[in-house]
């Protein structure tokens, strides 16, 4: 790989363009208020077409994506995004749609929404979905607004608190705070699951509901969910399901059957649409029958990210009913296979069967000796890059100090997973023998260890020529 670190501004040469336009017929701007006119021209890069093509192609080759290699980023479900999704989303009849077109000219798009609504309802056990939320946390906010509207509509104005487990994704309390709810924390027990005994005293008539992720952030199934649902419902609260970890349940377990009333899905996780820097997200929110009247919360303009919704629908139709049922079991099998294959080299704080992801707590033998510090989780993650794998999620969840959270997803073959296991074993052996190999990693990445502290303390947010 060629090292490339230029900014497009550095390629700029005055007067160089990739287009040619006729001279304007009139350069008069007299109709615009003088105070609205800029004093100098904007600083845009002046480059030819081939400059632009090479610049972005070179940058893209320095990037790592799921199309490049294995991407076991825990809590993110970085599954492969099938190319048929892109093909369908690129059809001119979909691409050319305008959200203000008359209804009778968009029956195809309406069929996509209706089809995905019923498919997701079948997969989750919810009654209907809204497709307006544009991300997972946006979905959380929408779901909480629905919960609030429901209580308000019954004149029950005292319910201003929401229960969030200490193992929750950070977005849960953040969304609740944005929604104006007060957060009450419920603790986990020694097995990493919500402690029912800790929950009971919190349940009174000021509780709007509880937000849960199942399987939770440790990749563990909340086995007491039926009991939790019964207790929360008896106290008059509702259950919110954070769909971030829905993948291992697809086709096997439905949040609706567990007793959840409201949920969001991350189409960019579970339903194979582009993720992260790859494009806009989508966090549709589903509700049970009695909450359908509150589904009309306006949280974005028009109809959400239609092309993402279309990709998710394509994915489900391409898999079909039988294969959708295999998503969860295969994601679970792959995670457990890795977990068991490396537990003699990496500390496994929670040894029970996991769902789609699991957490190691650093190396068993980190190679620390007199005068030589041991290899940390960060060092392992950096060393993985040398072997062409994306690093897993590190230092999350905070419960474990050297956390390394791995989620392989169902789309990887046994060969790829075996290769990953072999590399992880080799890294563990290197650490035990000579941790400095890891301290200095990555050895062949264009950028090795950026100074995150300085970047956070003194961020430079604008291009400085």
């Amino acid at each position: 790989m060629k090292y490339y670190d230029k900014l497009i501004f550095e390629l700029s040469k005055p007067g160089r363009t990739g287009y040619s336009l006729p001279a304007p017929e009139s350069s008069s701007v007299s109709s615009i208020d003088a105070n609205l006119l800029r004093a100098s021209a904007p600083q845009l890069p002046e480059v030819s077409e081939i400059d632009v093509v090479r610049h972005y192609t070179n940058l893209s080759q320095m990037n790592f994506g799921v199309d490049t290699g294995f991407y076991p980023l825990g809590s993110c479900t970085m599954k492969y995004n099938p190319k048929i999704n892109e093909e369908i989303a690129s059809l001119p009849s979909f691409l050319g749609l305008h959200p203000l077109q008359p209804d009778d000219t968009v029956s195809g798009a309406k069929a996509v929404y209706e089809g995905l609504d019923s498919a997701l309802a079948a997969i989750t056990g919810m009654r209907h979905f809204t497709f307006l939320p544009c991300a997972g946390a946006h979905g959380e906010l929408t779901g909480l607004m629905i919960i609030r509207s429901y209580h308000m509509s019954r004149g029950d104005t005292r319910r201003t608190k929401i229960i969030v487990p200490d193992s929750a994704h950070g977005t849960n309390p953040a969304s609740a705070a944005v929604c104006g709810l007060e957060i009450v924390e419920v603790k986990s027990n020694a097995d990493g699951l919500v402690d029912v005994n800790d929950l009971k005293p919190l349940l009174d008539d000021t509780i709007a509901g509880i937000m849960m992720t199942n399987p939770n952030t440790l990749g563990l199934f909340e086995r007491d969910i039926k009991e939790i649902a019964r207790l929360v419902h008896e106290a008059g609260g509702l259950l919110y399901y954070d769909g971030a970890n829905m993948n291992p349940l697809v086709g096997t377990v439905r949040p609706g059957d567990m007793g959840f009333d409201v949920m969001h899905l991350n189409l960019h996780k579970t339903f194979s649409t582009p993720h992260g820097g790859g494009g806009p997200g989508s966090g549709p929110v589903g509700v049970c029958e009695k909450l359908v009247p509150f589904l009309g919360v306006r949280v974005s303009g028009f109809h959400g990210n239609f092309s993402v919704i279309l990709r998710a629908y394509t994915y489900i139709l391409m898999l079909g009913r039988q294969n959708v049922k295999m998503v969860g079991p295969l994601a679970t099998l792959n995670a457990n296979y890795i977990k068991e294959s490396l537990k003699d080299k990496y500390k496994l704080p929670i040894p029970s069967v996991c769902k789609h992801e699991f957490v190691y707590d650093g190396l068993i033998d980190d190679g620390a000796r007199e005068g030589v510090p041991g290899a940390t989780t960060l060092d392992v993650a950096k060393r993985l890059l040398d072997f062409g794998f994306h690093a897993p999620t590190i230092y999350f969840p905070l419960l474990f100090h050297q956390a390394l959270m791995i989620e392989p997803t169902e789309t990887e073959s046994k060969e790829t997973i075996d290769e990953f296991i072999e590399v992880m074993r080799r890294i563990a052996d290197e650490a035990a023998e000579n941790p400095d190999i890891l301290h200095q990693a990555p050895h062949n990445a264009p950028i090795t260890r950026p100074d995150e502290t300085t970047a956070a303390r003194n961020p430079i947010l604008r291009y400085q020529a």
Partner: protein
Amino acid sequence: MSKVIEGLRYSESHEWVKVDGEFAFIGVSDFAQAEMGDITYVDVPSVDDEFAKGEEFGALESVKASSDLYMPVGGVVVEVNDAVVDAPELVNQDAYENWLIKIQMSDPAEAEGLMDAAAYNEFTAK
């Protein structure tokens, strides 16, 4: 082993209190700064803000995580250490020298319920 200073009082959420008559300086322990790693942002309240014991009064952010700060004793903020806000790394350099806020305590007896150096040492060893 992180540093613990005699004569200060410590909370279970790792804040320390240095009592000075009716006033008190509040900071975070050496254990807390070591756990957090390089601190990148310090969020403290304004002068005259009033908090009860146990109430959240600010937060520290590091590259790794964000941690809320809780009042080890109740009171009114009379001074904020701007030096630490401008240079969060001071907390990493010396967590005891670099206090975060100075308060006028509403009930100085509250400080007595906190751990002393020996008890805090034992608490963090767990």
